[in-house]
């Protein structure tokens, strides 16, 4: 492939085109909508794979670069490019979207949850609502898949942008399809959750916008005002300004990630979002926050990161333990998974702000692996909830007897959440912790307690739902095992996790140079071994 092929723009446009095509199709052809959406996402996957092959790990930091003037008065450009970090996250998007479409195949067909519940308690409801025939309100299947595809375009844009303003535009635009996904297709408290999600994100976005403008002002002061990432790196500014601008970006990203104590929107959004939406929300959208730390906070504001880094480490460690303890205390399966993510985002933040190559590479790997792992966990939980029509853990028991494949996939997804060696999540957690330990040993030791807590919350949930004598929620007399479609949705995630657990090199080869460039931007170097001389000292074999 020639270098000039505009990979990123093409890949970003494909889902948008798919969405437009969907919009032109007749409203009732739901089967066709689903197929078109799936095919579109598979085309994106194929193109992304081709792009990854074309990427040269040892080549330029940013590849597939394109830049065109957009608002020339302010130096705003349409500029895209991918470094290794963005590349692996783009690959994650390409994998997760078809999986989500496949897994959500029938989700939008179902009536909204409150009507399902009404149907479940027919005997009671009949008396109250006698005479008033409740006409089931159908939700548009077409809109659901249009939203997913539009969201995919936005997500691709946010990782591909190399112009800070463009990044900001995607960062905010991403909210809109997600807001509607939660608000229109979510659980009983969806409006509340969607509004909370939006308000939090808006508050963060506002701060970021201010910081983006601030950056422009600073660069304009020193010559030509610009939003181009590579020109902004190394910009001179006083420490006070740096800390102010850093904080603007940081808080926006910390809300998005979410990092403790900015996390409380996530359990609501994660629990109320439709399962597919939850996967995209936690699996990808939230990664924009941690990606932002690494791409923007660190290289643009090295001094501020150095000063504030240790405090952020403290927040991350609290988040790891706090998220894990709260996960243990949840009865709602989807809230539980959301809280595990709070803990996991703590790990990602830890790796980033430890300022070691291992920590940051681990953090990037963690973003990918967490997308696969939490994606699988949400999907399988969704399969269970769709069958039992209850999100509450205590409503279930011994499901493994009735649905062994469901139980098996739930267990593997759970084991990945607790970072069992042999699954890819272990590699990333290990790298984050080993990278943190060599600079902040106490933080690493405390965070390692989170490793124990993870085993407790996962196995507790597994035992309560899947083991013991078989008992199902009231009104559900039997639970069927996974369909072929559901297996096909979740199997690629599990297979990828196992493969990358034993052979993460394809990812680390791409991530390492990007992380090293980031480390160089921040002017930090890895600590050297305190007592030995590393592997170099080992006798040659």
């Amino acid at each position, binding site marked *: 492939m020639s270098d000039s092929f505009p990979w990123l723009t093409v890949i970003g446009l494909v889902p948008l085109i798919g969405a437009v095509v969907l919009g032109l199709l007749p409203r009732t052809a739901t089967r066709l909508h689903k197929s078109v959406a799936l095919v579109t996402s598979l085309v994106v996957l194929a193109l992304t794979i081709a792009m990854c092959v074309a990427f040269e790990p040892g080549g330029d930091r940013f590849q597939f670069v394109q830049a065109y003037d957009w608002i020339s008065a302010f130096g705003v450009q349409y500029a895209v490019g991918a470094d290794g970090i963005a590349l692996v996250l783009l690959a994650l998007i390409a994998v997760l979207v078809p999986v989500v479409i496949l897994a959500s195949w029938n989700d939008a067909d179902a009536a909204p949850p409150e009507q399902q519940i009404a149907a479940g308690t027919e005997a009671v409801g009949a008396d109250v609502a006698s005479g008033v025939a409740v006409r089931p309100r159908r939700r548009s299947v077409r809109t659901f898949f249009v939203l997913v595809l539009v969201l995919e375009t936005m997500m691709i844009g946010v990782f591909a942008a190399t112009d800070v303003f463009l990044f900001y535009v995607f960062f905010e635009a991403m909210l809109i399809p997600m807001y509607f996904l939660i608000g229109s297709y979510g659980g009983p408290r969806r409006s509340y959750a969607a509004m909370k999600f939006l308000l939090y994100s*808006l508050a963060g976005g*506002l701060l970021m916008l201010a910081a983006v403008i*601030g950056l422009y002002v600073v660069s304009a002061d020193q010559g030509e005002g610009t939003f181009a990432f590579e020109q902004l790196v190394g910009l001179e500014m006083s420490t*006070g300004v740096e800390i102010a601008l850093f904080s603007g970006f940081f808080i926006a990203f910390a809300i998005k990630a979410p990092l403790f104590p900015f996390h409380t929107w996530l359990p609501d959004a994660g629990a109320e979002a439709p399962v597919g939406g939850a996967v995209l929300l936690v699996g990808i959208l939230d990664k924009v926050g941690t990606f932002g730390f690494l791409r923007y906070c660190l290289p643009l504001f090295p001094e501020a990161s150095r000063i504030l880094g240790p405090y952020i480490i403290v927040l991350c460690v609290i988040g790891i333990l*706090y998220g894990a303890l709260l996960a243990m205390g949840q009865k709602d399966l989807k809230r539980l998974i959301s809280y595990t993510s709070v803990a996991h985002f703590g790990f990602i933040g830890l790796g980033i702000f430890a300022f070691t*190559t291992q920590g940051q590479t681990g953090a990037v790997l963690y973003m990918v692996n967490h997308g696969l792992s939490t994606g699988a966990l949400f999907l399988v939980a969704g399969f269970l909830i769709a069958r039992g029509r209850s999100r509450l853990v205590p409503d279930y028991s011994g499901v493994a007897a009735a649905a062994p494949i469901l139980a098996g996939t739930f267990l593997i997804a759970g084991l990945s959440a607790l970072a069992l060696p042999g699954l890819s999540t272990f590699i990333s957690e290990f790298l984050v912790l080993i990278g943190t330990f060599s600079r902040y040993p106490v933080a690493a030791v405390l965070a390692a307690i989170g490793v124990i807590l993870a085993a407790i919350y996962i196995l507790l949930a597994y035992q309560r739902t899947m083991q013991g*004598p078989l008992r199902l929620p009231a009104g559900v007399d039997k639970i069927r095992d996974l369909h072929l479609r559901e297996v096909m949705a979740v199997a690629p995630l599990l297979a990828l996790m196992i493969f990358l657990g034993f052979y993460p090199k394809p990812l680390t080869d791409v991530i390492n140079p990007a992380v090293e460039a980031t480390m160089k931007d921040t002017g930090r170097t*890895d600590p050297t071994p305190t*007592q030995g001389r590393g592997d170099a*000292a080992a006798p040659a074999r």
Partner: protein
Amino acid sequence: MSPLLATESGSAGQYAAATGTLELLWLLVAFPLVGAAVLLLGGRRADSWGPYLAIAACGAAFLYGVLALFALIGLEDRTADLQLYSWVPVRELQVDFGLLFDPLSATFTLLITGVGLLIHIYSLGYMSHDPRRRLFFGYLNLFIAAMLVLVLGDSFLALFLGWEGVGLASYLLISFWFYKPDAATAAKKAFIANRVGDVGLLLAIFLMFAALGTTSFTGVFSQAELLGAGTATALGLLLLLGACGKSGQFPLHTWLPDAMEGPTPVSALIHAATMVTAGVYLIARATPIYDVTDTARLVVGIIGAVTILIGAIIGCAYDDIKKVLAYSTVSQIGYMFLAVSIPGAGAIAILHLLTHGFFKACMFLSAGSVMHGMNDQVDMRRFGGLRTVMPVTFGCMLMGYLAIIGVPPFAGFFSKDLVIEAAFDQGGARGVVMGSVAVLAAGLTAFYMTRLMLMTFFGEKRWTDDVHPHESPPVMTGPMALLAVGSLVSGFVLVHVVDLERWLEPVTGEHKVEHVLAPIVVSLLTLTVVAAGVFVAYTQYAKKPIPTTAPAGVTPLTLAARRNLYFDALNENLLMRPGQYLTRALVFVDNRGIDGAVNGLAAAVGGSSGRLRRIQNGFVRSYALSMFGGAAVVVAALLVVRLGL
């Protein structure tokens, strides 16, 4: 560095590349791994032939293990390191996935695949009525593969992969009958207790990297002398924490007896013969680290001695045959920890590990055979007189019994005697205390094992009405008989024919013997104490009738022992309850406190945005307005900042 270390440890950590037969070392792991994959993913189609495939996979690994052993003996420096691929490459941290075949890992390989094969075959009979036995055999194969990775890995990270892999297999097998709430709880407890230990091992790996810049055996061991005293001790203690978790040592031992909820072949293979001894392997493997820290060695010895006593005391009080055997395992592994804590005596620990692998597996399988014939009854108060109904089982159990209490020439006599000798030979108070504990516990072992034999096989029949005990089929008694033979001869063979101590010397170091007590004195002393233990048990359980319920009005010690010395109560009150309270409190705080504050803010924002909406008559515009407003505020703030500077 002393000249002795130069000749012994100088070679530690330097491994020759694998050649010839040993280049196929990966087959050892591949056979059972493929078996597991086929069985677990194969679906119902594999139900009929699956178990045989599993046996074949384990058998193939065993045969290859034997071949590899001979290849290894033929090598001059007796090490073979097979580099497979670059596993975790991140700058300074370069972890290659490699397998190391040396005397220690070769010994373990044969134990794992050999005993593993026998127990696979036994399971064919034991699990014949279980509809899910395909999964059972799949998990067994998975265990074998993980355990082989544990002992063959050539870096601490590869070891850790196997380490948690066996933990997973153990979890799956303990909870194999997942519909039993006790089994599910026991499995979870095992995994979590192991995780506590695993974190110790993980931190050890982090510390190695921070201090030495490497996690490979080669890199760490060849630089062990560079470690500062504090770092070395910390490393030793962290590795010990890992070992305690996996090997059921004090204070992480309570999961092991609960793990008996799993099927009995699992108890024999994983929770007696192989996995639970991984802690001993870890410490023996890390000999170069412990060589530079006597403090850590001392703590290992103390943990061992304490656990020997805890296990033996509790073992005297239980009526559940499998739990008695489990506490016996806890106690016997204590012996191994005691031995491995003594410089140069690592080989003796491995010796006891091997003989224990034979006789304890033999006893567990015999106990399984008893349960098989007694409708899964485990209460020894409901046994009695089984000697005539199950002669083969009785014979096998008897061989195991004679071996564990240490009657010459049975296997336990050789290994336990050497452990006790080595304990005394440390000299000083350390030698006297540890040696005495070891001798005393030998007496207790004789007591509780004699009690087990008498209650099960002798005396009157105290069976419940519905049981019709019968001898087990040959597919079960065959493996039992082979293990019984092992219980008889393995001690003599390993000490006098193979000379295991010399074979393992390159790994565990030379054992410099300066006898404090003459070996014959130690042997006689031990045998006297053992005889006393047997005699006391005889007077209590052969001379008097055994009530079918445990008698009340016993001494406080017995009462405490029946409640496993209150360790579970302690765990519950010290960790579980406070943990639950903390969790509940945090959930409350998160909902009311943090979220409440934010919701208040959100309400305020929502209110004002509501007002904005009314004015602006459109959400998007209010959004734009708020963006613009925020921008204006911050630009103003920036100007202030700049003016202020």
